[in-house]
Structure formats: C-alpha cells, structure tokens
C-alpha cells in the first residue's frame, strides 16, 4: 500500500523520557470527546466576546491614529447599548477563562507529541497553534489585568489587546477548520453518553495504538487519550460541573457590576462591586479629579463654558443653570465592564448647538480643561448631538456635581463608552457635519 504521507524527518523514533512519552499522561478523562465538549462550551462565549470586543472598538472615537476598519457611525441609542455590549464582553471574557484552562489541560499531551513535526502541514498547524494558545492567553490575561486597573506592561493596552485578538481569532479559525472532523466524529460515536457515567463507571477513551490505521481513520496521528490510563479520581461530569460552576460564578460577579443597584454587592471580587455610599454623588467614579489634575482652584466662579461655532458664546455656570433644564436617567458604561445609572440634570446639547448658531444637524468637539490623562476630548457626531437625551449635565440626583464627577459641567450621552462622556468641560466647538 503506498505511503499516505512523505516519511517524517530523521528524528529518533523513540521519544525522550518524560512528557514526550505517551504513558506520562495518565488521566483517563482525556480524549477527543472531552476536548470536544469543552471546546463546544468555549466557542459561543468566545464568539460573543469577540463580537462585543470589536463593537467596543467601534464605539470609541473611530479615528485615533492606527485604528481603522469601521465604516458605520456608532448609533445614538438605545441608551444602554454600550452598557450591554461591553458588559457582555467582560462577562463572557471572565466566564470563558475556567473553560479555557480546562481546554488547555485536556490537550497538553499534544504539546509534547513525538515526533514533533510529521509533515509540512503538521508543522504549520503547530505554528498556528502557537498563535492560538499565545493569542488566547495574551488577550484574556491582559483583559483581566486591565479591568483591575493594573497596567503591568509597557505597551499600550488598547491596540495590543485589539491586535492580539486578531492573532488569537485567526489561529482559532484554522484550528476549528482542521478539528471539525474530529469533533463531529466524537459526538457521532459517543453522543453525550459520557455525561451519564458516574465515577465508578468512568471509562477512558481508546488510544489508537496502530498509527497508520489511526491516521487513515481519524486523519490525525495520535489523540490525547491515554495509553496507560490510571484510575479515575473524578468523573467527566464532575470535572465539567466544576468548570461550569466556576464559570457561572465569575459571570454572576461580572454581571453584578453591570446591573448594579441591589445586585452590585454580588460582585465580590470584581473591581466595581462595592457601594460607594448613599449620597447623590456617591456612585462609581471613572476617573477622579486628582487623576485628571483638576483641583478646586480650577473650578472657581471664573469658569466659563466656551461655545464656538458661527457664534462664539461664553456662559457661566449660573447662566447655564438659568437655561431650560432636562433630567434623564443615563448610564456611565465603562470599558472595564461596569455600569452605573444615575439621574442627570442639565442643558440638552442640541440647545447649545442652536446657541452657537447652528440650526440644522451639528457635530461638536468637546474638550476638557483637565491637565492630565488620555481622552481629554471627543467628537460627537450629529446623531448624538440631535438626541434629546444628550446633556451637558450640571447636577446629578438633585445635587450639584461633585468635583470627581466633573464639576462644573460634564457631558452625558446615551450609548457611549464612559470615557467619551467628557468631564470638566471647557470648550464645545460646534460645526456643520463633515464627511467621516
């Protein structure tokens, strides 16, 4: 019978001692079925996480240096749009981690498979796996550290996390294509029967001992099933139950800091799971005045809001308070995956556009007078300016804004990431809409 594949490189047939020998890995749980079921649980979470991640990217100002690819204008509603997309991103991201770790455990024997390279195709596959595993660990790890405001790295998080996800998802796409036959066969052969096995009836999957026969049937050299299984110490459903429960616990904690209100305390270990207090300004702060270099001296009676446009207008806080006010419940939805909803009172931005002399659609560049920090300005496109709920807020929950929440004035706009709701506003430059 003609050989199915060019013979491998002249590597010694006998594997070196240790994990390169298949007898090393003794858990009877490993095998294509376990890996398939873990992978199937992981995939929907990854899909949601990836889609919401790219949406988050679009929600940020679409034109900072280096970013591209987005041709649509981020909508101005529904109000909780970014809360939902970014909340889901962090919830699914955290929930995926226990499942990811279980997946890596289930396939670790493949890292040490011997011979290491069987063909060109096999070698390329292993390189792509490095992209998959490295990419996954990179984006999940940087994501988890970022939501805790722990910037332990020297690179810039936003582009690194973004481009890292390209590497991860590209590796994943190839991996799914290559492994699809293996997954389908595992389900065809066993269905969900292993989930019915208790500890005493937990059986190992068969390793394909005859290499050529295996390769002809499964299309791959060896599986992760053990050649010398030890006795099972936990059933598959026990393991999957543990992983699932941990995943659910993380999801609940992450959701608690999005839904907030009475549920917030359920977020025991997430960064924004604690109540800040009970006063009108006691809610989650997304950047303190100290971090922005804003002090009481900067916000005295001589502060003026400067409106630029066909007309230039300077308004004091008293003059703003004398204008017709609107009150709306609006969220601050942070990229770190938390949301807080408060009742904001202020002047609708479209009224300010008219004051600056623009009657029809208008866009606005809003600038803060804060001295430090990124994101000190943002451009609001016409759909957002026209939204009657987009406010220049002066008060929250019936009291004046505190310094940390942007006194003397901040914008609060539905559906936008928290960082684009500029605090300590100094300047608003209105203009007729330009092409994106």
């Amino acid at each position, binding site marked *: 019978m003609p050989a*199915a*594949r*060019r013979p491998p490189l002249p590597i010694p047939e006998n594997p070196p001692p240790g994990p390169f020998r298949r007898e090393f890995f*003794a858990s009877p749980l490993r*095998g294509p079925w376990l890996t398939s079921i873990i992978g199937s649980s992981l995939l929907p979470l990854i899909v949601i996480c990836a889609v919401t991640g790219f949406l988050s990217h679009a929600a940020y100002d679409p034109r900072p240096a*280096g970013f591209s690819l987005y041709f649509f204008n981020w909508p101005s509603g529904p109000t909780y749009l970014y809360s939902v997309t970014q909340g889901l991103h962090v919830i699914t991201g*955290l929930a995926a981690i226990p499942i990811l*770790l279980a997946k*890596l*455990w289930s396939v670790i024997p493949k890292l040490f498979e011997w011979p290491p390279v069987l063909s*060109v*195709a*096999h070698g*390329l*596959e292993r*390189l*792509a796996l*490095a*992209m998959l595993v*490295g*990419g996954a*660990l990179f984006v999940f790890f*940087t994501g988890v550290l970022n939501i*805790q*405001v*722990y910037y*332990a*790295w*020297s*690179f*810039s998080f936003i*582009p*690194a996390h973004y*481009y890292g996800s*390209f590497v991860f998802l590209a*590796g994943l*796409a190839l991996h799914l*294509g*290559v492994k699809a036959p293996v997954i389908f066969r595992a389900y065809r*052969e*066993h269905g969900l029967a292993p989930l019915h096995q208790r500890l*005493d009836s937990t*059986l190992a999957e*068969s390793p394909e001992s005859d290499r050529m026969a295996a390769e002809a049937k499964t299309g791959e050299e060896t599986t992760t099933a053990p050649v*010398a*299984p*030890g*006795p099972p*110490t936990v059933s598959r459903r*026990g393991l999957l139950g*543990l992983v699932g429960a*941990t995943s659910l616990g993380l999801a609940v904690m992450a959701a608690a800091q999005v839904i907030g209100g009475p549920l917030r305390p359920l977020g025991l*270990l*997430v*960064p*924004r799971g*604690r109540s800040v207090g009970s006063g009108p300004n006691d809610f989650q*702060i*997304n950047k*303190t005045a100290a971090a922005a270099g804003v002090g009481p001296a900067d916000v005295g009676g001589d502060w003026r809001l400067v409106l630029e446009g066909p007309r230039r207008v300077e308004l004091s806080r008293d003059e703003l308070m004398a204008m017709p006010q609107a009150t709306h419940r609006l969220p601050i939805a942070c990229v770190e995956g938390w949301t807080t909803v408060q009742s904001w009172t202020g002047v609708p931005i479209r009224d300010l556009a008219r004051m600056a002399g623009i009657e029809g659609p208008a866009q606005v560049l809003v600038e803060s007078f804060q001295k430090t920090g990124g994101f000190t300005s943002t451009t609001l496109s016409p759909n957002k300016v026209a939204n009657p709920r987009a406010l220049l807020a002066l008060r929250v929950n019936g009291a004046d804004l505190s310094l940390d929440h942007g006194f003397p004035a901040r914008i609060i706009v539905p559906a936008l990431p928290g960082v684009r709701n500029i605090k300590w506003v100094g300047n608003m430059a209105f203009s007729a809409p330009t092409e994106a």
Partner: protein
Amino acid sequence: MKRFRYEYGAGPLHLVGSIATFAVAGYVALRVVDGSVGAPIGFLVWFVGAIFLHDFVLLPLYSLLDRLPRRAAGVRRSLPDDERRLVLGRREGKWLVEPAGASVRPRRVSWLNHLRFPVMVSALLMLLFFPLILGLAEEDYSMVSGQSTDGFLERWALITAVLLVVSAAIYVVRRVRAGAAGRER
C-alpha cells in the same frame, strides 16, 4: 492531488487556510514593529511569556501539586493490567475490556475532590484577581476609582473559607448516606 497530499501532508485547503492565518499574524507583526502597540519588545515578551508561563510553569505546577492529595487519598498511579479499562463504549464493542469484579466493588466516598474543588476554585480566583487581592493595583486603582483595594484580601479569604466549609459539609452528608446505605444491605 495525491502527490500534493504526499508532499504536504494534507489537502490544499489546509495550505490555503494556513497561509491566510499566517497572513493575519504577519499584519499584526507589522503593526507591532511600526510602533502601533507602543512597545514591540514588551508585546512579544508578554505574548511568548504567556505561553511559557502557562504551559511550563502553571500547568506543571498544579499537576504536581495535585499528586500530593491524590497519593494521600490512596490513588494509585496506574491500573494493574487485569483492571485496565480501555474504551468509552465503541459501538462495535471490539475494544471493550471490563475489569474483573468491577460491579461488586463497594462505593467509597473519598475526601479527595472535596478538598480539590474548593482549593482549585480559590486558586483560580487568586490567579485572576491577585492585583486587587494583594493590593498590587492600589496606586492606579485608587487614582482612577477613588476607592482602595483594601478589603479584597478579606473577601477572597472569606470565599475560600465558605467553599471549604460547604465542601466539607457535603462530604459529611455523602459519607453518612453511603454508610446508611451500606448498613441496609
């Protein structure tokens, strides 16, 4: 086609897919090199370091640590030949090997998983949230949020304690029930 498969080791679609995947990696590499991510060396170090830290530090570490309770619970490293079970019920039944006397082996409730499960969950929570729990993120976190990382260590310790206590309670219940069932026979 056969020649292609012989030389390459898989079909042409595999090659096309691989090229597309590496093209994406190449694009990202360009972005890293041109400074779009800020610190090219840092990015590479973290990327490769992540693989290294998980595959060669974390996984071996927790695997080795798991051996201690397993040995204490009397779990043998491998099955003797006459007890080897090989297969997950292949349809044609060709490979099925049932160990002798398996069905009359008494059901023992072991404490092993009642220790492993809470410890694994607790360790994972520490692995994920160590910047808050150990206060490493205090500087940036307090600057940004106005809150302190104080209290997270206590929360993690409390969760660990609750997990251990609940697990122990379930163990006791299971032992009592298994004992009662054994006496009934």
